[in-house]
């Protein structure tokens, strides 16, 4: 699988990763080599095999629909990089 500059840009955009010029070549080669390695999967007959997403094929449990004490605002404010009046601050998104 060949990954070109446009392909890398697309992945980086999807992953919200900014890439320096200095790391692009190495990353393209790295991604290509991993994809080449995993190409062995193509030769396996997986006809009628169910995909396995959980090692014990278990369904995730749902919590009881009950009110509990889940107000962690004060603790979460402590670890937020920028916060004001109980709100996370981000660059302006509406002109």
């Amino acid at each position, binding site marked *: 699988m060949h990954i070109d500059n446009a392909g890398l840009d697309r992945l*980086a955009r999807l992953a*919200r990763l900014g890439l320096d010029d200095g790391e692009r070549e190495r990353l393209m080669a790295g991604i290509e*080599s991993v994809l080449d390695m*995993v190409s062995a*999967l193509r030769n396996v007959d997986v006809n009628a095999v169910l995909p396995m997403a959980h090692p014990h094929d278990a369904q995730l449990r749902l919590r009881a629909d009950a009110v509990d004490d889940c107000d962690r605002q004060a603790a979460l404010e402590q670890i*937020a990089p920028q916060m004001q009046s109980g709100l*996370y601050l981000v660059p302006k998104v509406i002109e």
Partner: protein
Amino acid sequence: MSGLRFADIAAWRAAAADQDVVAVARTMAEAAQPDLNALISLAPAADAAAATRTGALAGIPFAHKDLFCTGGLRTTAGSRMLADFVPPYDATVAVRLDQAGAICIGKANMDEFAMGSSNENSAFGAVRNPWDLTRVPGGSSGGSAALVAAGIVPFATGSDTGGSVRQPAAFCGVTGFKPSYGRVSRYGMIAFASSLDQAGVIARHARDCAEVLDCLAGFDPRDATSVERPAEHFVGACDRGVQGLRIGVARQLYSAGVRSEIADCTRAALSELERAGAVLVDIELPRLELSVSAYYVIAPAEASSNLARYDGVRYGHRAESARDLNELYSRSRSEGFGNEVKRRILVGTFVLSAGYYDAYYLRAQQVRRLIAEDFARAFSGVDVIAGPTTPDVAFGIGEKADDPLAMYAADINTVAVNLAGLPAISLPCGFVDAMPVGLQLIGPAWGESQLFAAAHAYQQLSDWHQRTPSLTAGAQS
């Protein structure tokens, strides 16, 4: 002090009656840090209340891999992204060890977000192997393994997504235990690949791993994948012996990549167990060779999803003066993540993206089932499966830095266990090039007890796990 270095939990417990053993461990850890770089953070000195603790591990010092959230104590996951992250809560693993009375002396170095097999991918520098400071300790729980191998603590926590407890245990000549998926809560364990991640234990003795697992195991409603099962007594299982135990030996675990001297060490260990009454049975794991490919699709896919949470907004690294929201995301992530993490995020993004999902991710999940079915078939005729943990001994620092695929390929004997959600243990079983060799025993799901029986029986017959490295002057002080 020297009397406690390399001691087991029982000896630390006995010593705790009349000396401050936590201070002893802290002093050894500080002295060894320039050589090993095994800790990212040292915990504050224990308060006086520590001396009055009760519980199964009362007063025993240990280290947490630095991806278990510890409230009030920095938790970095080996990443610049979390270099200043102080969690507002404790992982369940941390809570249970605290309830057992154990005392965390610090947070062990690790590959960034547990991605790596050498501990060279840490934002806090490489960890060095106590047996040879020019070699890697393995990864990703390399700091945990190095601390136990250097005799600084009797046990340390780890996490195992593709071998990250067992492989560093093998490289450092200690015992590493990975439980069945769902046995130990993942709550508060910083996620890498959620369907593969499982907390584990590294100690010198299998019996000590069992003792710690007795404290950690059990249902946790806060982890949606935690499995509710009747309590078991793993320490008690250690004395069951191996009379009649059927040990499966798969030729696929001895593939061409496994060095012959490594294979010889593990075969000698199996012969010891056979003489003690175990029965060796040839088995087949025909799809094992596909496990590295399936793993390196599934694990990056899950990682790309899990690591999407690091956006510079809620916690973790935030880029300065971003002009808009997208730039804030992309620059915060670019500055916060290291090379290996970026590569895996991008691979994971690729295999999940439109047009490639079926060919890569879905197919890898189908192959995952075939691999799990191979294990299930094998376990219809045997109690445990045995083979080398790793194809070779620890390699030199920097030796494989430019060839990540060579490191991935060396995960061949460990990753399949995670794909199938099985328990497994790595035990010291010899030396090659003066470096430790690991024997891996794999159990069926929830078969921890028979693993501990076999592992402890082997450690009664051998003394490889009691061999100790001759540390440099700094580490011995």
